[in-house]
């Protein structure tokens, strides 16, 4: 019986050691890949940061209306945020490459799904950036246009437009990331509709008199224009 136990132990030890031996290259591959990706990330980030600093990325971003981005960036520097994001992405990729070296079905499936998900993440990020820029630009256009049309509630309109665009952008981004699903749709619909309703109420009901006076003035202006002697060009 002792021999049988010995045999069983030998067999199981051999099995485990074989498995470990099989896994060892994989593990080594993970570490090697990780190491390479860290070094690569460091180099790329160094160059990337220098080039961003050279083109004064932070200042341009602020000028384009992206100040909120600066606020939740580390040290208020979108450059740093981007470079850190880039470095983490590179490291992550290295890790994934290493993991897929294990050649185990589970991990490769995971890796596959992750890689198919990544484009959505990039798309969502681009959406957010574009939406933020668009929101700022549009709200300014509306503000100036409304002021030039003598609308007293110009700032309200401008804020409303900005939030409409932002809410839309966020909803689209979340949709891309397949986060929330229907709840996001409903929340978005409520928010969006709510903002529109609030704007209409504020403009219509709340400033009912103002609007009617404004319309009255518009009607008068049509005649006044002819009476006023100013000719600009």
């Amino acid at each position, binding site marked *: 019986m002792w021999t049988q136990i010995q045999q069983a132990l030998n067999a199981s030890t051999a099995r485990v050691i074989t498995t470990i031996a099989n896994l060892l290259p994989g593990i080594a591959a993970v570490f090697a890949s990780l190491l390479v990706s860290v070094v690569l990330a460091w180099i790329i980030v160094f160059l990337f940061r220098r080039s961003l600093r050279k083109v004064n990325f932070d200042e341009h971003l602020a*000028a384009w209306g992206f100040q909120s981005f600066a606020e939740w960036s580390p040290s208020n520097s979108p450059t740093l945020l981007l470079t850190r994001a880039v470095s983490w992405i590179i490291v992550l990729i290295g890790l994934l490459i290493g993991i897929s070296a294990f050649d185990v079905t589970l991990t490769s499936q995971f890796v596959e799904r992750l890689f198919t998900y990544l484009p959505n993440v990039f798309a969502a990020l681009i959406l957010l950036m574009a939406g933020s820029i668009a929101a700022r*630009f549009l709200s*300014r*256009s509306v*503000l*100036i*246009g*409304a*002021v*030039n*049309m*003598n609308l*007293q509630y*110009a*700032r309200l309109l401008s804020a409303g437009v900005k939030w409409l665009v932002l809410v839309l952008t966020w909803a689209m981004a979340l949709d891309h990331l397949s986060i929330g699903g229907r709840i996001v749709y409903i929340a978005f619909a409520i928010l969006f509709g709510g903002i529109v309703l609030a704007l209409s109420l504020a403009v219509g009901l709340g400033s009912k008199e103002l609007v009617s006076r404004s319309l009255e003035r518009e009607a008068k*202006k049509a005649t*006044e*224009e*002819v*009476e*006023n*002697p*100013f*000719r*600009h*060009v």
Partner: protein
Amino acid sequence: MIAELTSISEQTKQRLQQIGAVDLVIGFADQRAGEDIANLLPKIHQGLSGLALKGRTVVLVPNYGVAVGDGEVVNEESLALFQYSLPAPDPSISAAQNISGAYRVIWRISEELNARACAVFISAVENLTPQWIFQLAQPVLERNFDLVAPYYLHRKFDAMLNSSILYPLTRAIYGKRVQNPLGPDFAFSTPLLQHLLRLDSAKPRSSAGHDMTLIEPAAVVAKVKVCQSILGERTYPVVDGKDLSSVIAGILAPVFLALERDAAFWQHIRGSEPIPIFGEDLTIKEESVDVDVRRLLESFRLGFSSLQEIWGVVLPPTILLELRKLDRLAPEQFRIPDELWARIVYEFAMAYRLRSIARDHLLRAMTPLYLGWVASYALEMEAVGAVTVQQRLEKLCVAYENMKPYLVSRWRSPDRFNP
């Protein structure tokens, strides 16, 4: 697309070659010139009668949007009248850019014809008198000037944008006292219009229409002979309140661009000098008009309260403080000092150059300030006559000239840490 039509078709070129020696080309941009040729021709003939012409005169009238090929409509011994095609004015681009298309075609035809002089009339054709034709063409044909700029007689509340910004600004910058630097009616010598065409083609084309090089600044920079001619009375159209900001943006954009392009030229110029002026200086009888500046002041106040975030990027603290004080004034006391106005215009020119904010937004955001100036001017000039108006505007021009060192220093040191 305007771009495509600025080159002349082969067919047109052939027809033009058949015309023979041409002295003067007169081009019209107003569509109604083409519609009412019967009334137009006698005026032209009368205007030409005083000129010593050696060759024929070609008159070009536009035919908007109609896909009729260019062709003669009238062919007399001394005068031929051509129709030329232009697309209908495109509402999506500024009026100035629509006009620039007309200039280009007329210049090209004139160049093709090798005429001695080219007179372009953009103003509404109702304004046209024989005097206009004569006054515009004669200095080029007989006195060897390269550019004849128009001098209009108008009422004190006409051409407000020109009086408040365009004339004083270009006078201080380029050093020449041209009352209407943006015309729009000019006469050119052939060398000048060839030069302008060259400048035009050298510029990169943008998809949103094409700013034409400003004519008078380009002429001054090229150091050609420039003069003014008193054409006579001109009526100014009413600009719809809603469109005013687009008009302002459309007019100021090429002006500020010109400032940027010609920086190396104008920074050396100090003061300004008058240029030769021809024609009879008549004064228009002013009927007294009542002005209601309430709406203008409303615009100014609304702009002040709502556009702080934009004005704060463009204007330095002292100017913002002055505007705040103006905002608090009672309507009767509302007066914008000339130096303050000149500084504001210069700061906007600087912000345009530095792209502190989107350029279109920048120029449109200037509208409430401009309306404030109009209100201030109107309150001051309500009860005065033409001579006082002239003196008043001269004072404004001098203020611009005195503040030019300020612009130069800001241009060369665009540091935001300034008073």
